[in-house]
């Protein structure tokens, strides 16, 4: 399936910017699940200082906001062909070893609740089926609801609060898999919802490494493994590592953020 994507992130500043940096992870990789046909990242109100790869292999752009700007607009757009792999990326590895993805990270520290969720996995004889069951269990324990959790909400907090968004679902799934000794990671990306062109927000899901299949994706929020409507952007141990846009601004004033996303066939 060919997906055409336009992802715009707009910062409006109420005072002219002194110095602000944004780190972008907005360049999707080509792999067994997707082939990038064309892709551009453009910036107005700032410049791309450099492009490099992080330790997870994500391609990053570092953006410097032009001094005195009152806004910064980042547009990532292009066409990606997706291939149906039933959510299985497989045995594809980068510089980070599997044990790296077995370690807890700041947003995925295990709690008692997460340890309880992990119990069936520890004695599992069919990991794939039990991970799907876990995914369903997480969704029923933590129904999807926006506005209740934040960028920095941990897996433990989301589980205790019993509501969350895709980021929280992915964090709980990841934290639980790691307690059971399975390498797990966070994937940020896009999802084309069938009934609309303008999508709500960029998406996120979990990937767990199975000895047999390698990396397998689980979108807890939608109760499925990623199919051809999904485009991967970046991976990491948690949302912080894979954030499409991460920034730091010096000086006074407030900023507002508007993200618009169009994904269509």
């Amino acid at each position, binding site marked *: 399936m060919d997906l055409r994507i336009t992802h715009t992130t707009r910062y409006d500043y109420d005072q002219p910017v002194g110095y602000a*940096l944004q780190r972008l992870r907005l360049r999707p990789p080509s792999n067994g699940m997707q082939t990038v046909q064309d892709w551009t990242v453009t910036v107005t109100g700032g410049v791309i*200082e*450099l492009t*490099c790869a*992080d330790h997870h292999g994500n391609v990053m752009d*570092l953006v*410097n906001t032009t001094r005195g700007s009152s806004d910064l607009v980042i547009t990532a757009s292009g066409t990606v062909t997706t291939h149906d792999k039933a959510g299985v990326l497989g045995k594809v590895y980068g510089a980070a070893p599997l*044990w790296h993805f077995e370690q807890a990270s700041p947003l995925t520290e295990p709690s008692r609740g997460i340890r309880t969720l992990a119990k069936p996995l520890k004695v599992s004889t069919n990991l794939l089926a039990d991970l799907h069951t876990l995914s369903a269990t997480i969704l029923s324990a933590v129904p999807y609801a926006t506005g209740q959790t934040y960028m920095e909400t941990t897996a433990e907090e989301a589980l205790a609060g019993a509501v969350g968004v895709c980021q929280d679902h992915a964090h709980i799934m990841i934290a639980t898999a790691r307690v059971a000794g399975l390498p797990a990671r966070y994937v940020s990306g896009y999802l084309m919802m069938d009934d609309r062109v303008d999508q709500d927000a960029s998406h996120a899901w979990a990937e767990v490494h199975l000895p047999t299949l390698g990396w397998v994706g689980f979108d807890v929020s939608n109760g499925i493994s990623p199919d051809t409507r999904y485009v991967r952007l970046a991976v990491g141990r948690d949302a912080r590592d894979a954030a499409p846009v991460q920034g*730091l601004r010096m000086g006074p004033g407030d900023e507002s953020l508007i993200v618009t996303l169009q994904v269509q066939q």
Partner: protein
Amino acid sequence: MSTKPDHFDEMRVGDDGVRAPYDGYKAWYDEQPPGRFARKSKEAEAFFRRTGITFNVYGQVAAQERLIPFDLVPRIISSREWTKLSKGIEQRVRAINAFLHDIYNRQEILRAGRIPIDLIARNAAFLPQMMGFSPPGDVYTHIVGTDIVRTGEDDFFVLEDNARTPSGVSYMLENRETMLQMFPELFSRIKVQPVSDYPKNLRRSLAASAPKSCGGKPVIAVLTPGIYNSAYYEHSFLADQMGAELVEGHDLRVVDGHIAMRTTRGYKQIDVLYRRVDDEYLDPLTFNPKSMLGVPGIMDVYRAGNITIANAPGTGVSDDKAIYSYMPDIVQFYTGEKAILKNVETFRCGEPDSLKYVLDNLADLVVKEVHGSGGYGMLVGPAASKKELADFADKLRARPGNYIAQPTLSLSTVPIFVKKGLAPRHVDLRPYVLVSPEGINITPGGLTRVALTEGSLVVNSSQGGGTKDTWVLED
């Protein structure tokens, strides 16, 4: 002066002989008129006050800033002894750089099962952000201060491999400068290998480590946390001595894909940053977001190959005290040779058998925090009270993995000058090692730290230690 039989005195053999390296010095010393040494000692102190070397002592409110005591009697090492020592240090530093490159890339040593994965995976000093990246010239530890102790004629042990941001080199330079001022005649009588070209060598070594993308003469800067840092004097001293810029985080920005410093004539690109800011505070966009001391985005500039950071972030994974215990294996693995310098026997308290042994023998052992430095948070068993031992045992049981223990070494002594004349005190040695793609350069000698209290084994300046000039004799 009498030497106790249970430790090695570097000046004397028995009660009357003088070890060969000290022959010339002792002859000169015996010629000195009474009272001259006491006067010189006062002069030296005044000299230090003028040059302004002071040292902040954490945890001592009454003495926030004070001089590190300097002793006038040099510690003397023969050319033959130094050749062996420096070969051992070079071998070890080579192994450490190979280890760091491996740990952050292919991880052969883990695949080979030579060290446990958890030791790296759960190590706070291991920085995942360094994985899949090779710094310019594959150099990680541009500056190393290897702490060495001696227990006998041919017995040298490495106590610590300081591969993060070792300090103290300014004392090495000032100590020699002071000695040259105090006793010029001594240096014409005895040929001592110079240390004064250290700043020049440091500059050359850092310049040789510049990124490939750097065209022309590399611009070098020293990044300091600022005037409140205990080693600020050293930061400004080194910048001054090597003709480099002294900068703080807020002076630096990302400009044209590089790190640049603000000047009156606009931004100036920096190619090599000798940073004296810890990893955690280096880049608020990557590590601690609250850090005001670092440079946002510097890790991106680094991974893009546009700057050299000295030392590389994440080198702490090679010098913590748990990794230390594996150092003989690490040297063997990467150099194919047996380690020339010995390691002190080390018990990893995280291992149940070791913990039991350590608890049973606490009064005879030195216990250190895995990530500790500066003598903080350590227990010297033989010097501890019963209550101190019991309290420390509780700490050990609570977090065994946080500690290692070592036998108390009977460190060698070198005399210091006291009212009554010469008296032996325990010493260690920190040679300074420079690493660049062109090779390894070790300044002859280093910083000798001395425990000024009779019988004390703790030489750290933060715990009341002093320093001495260290001589390596010409052949």
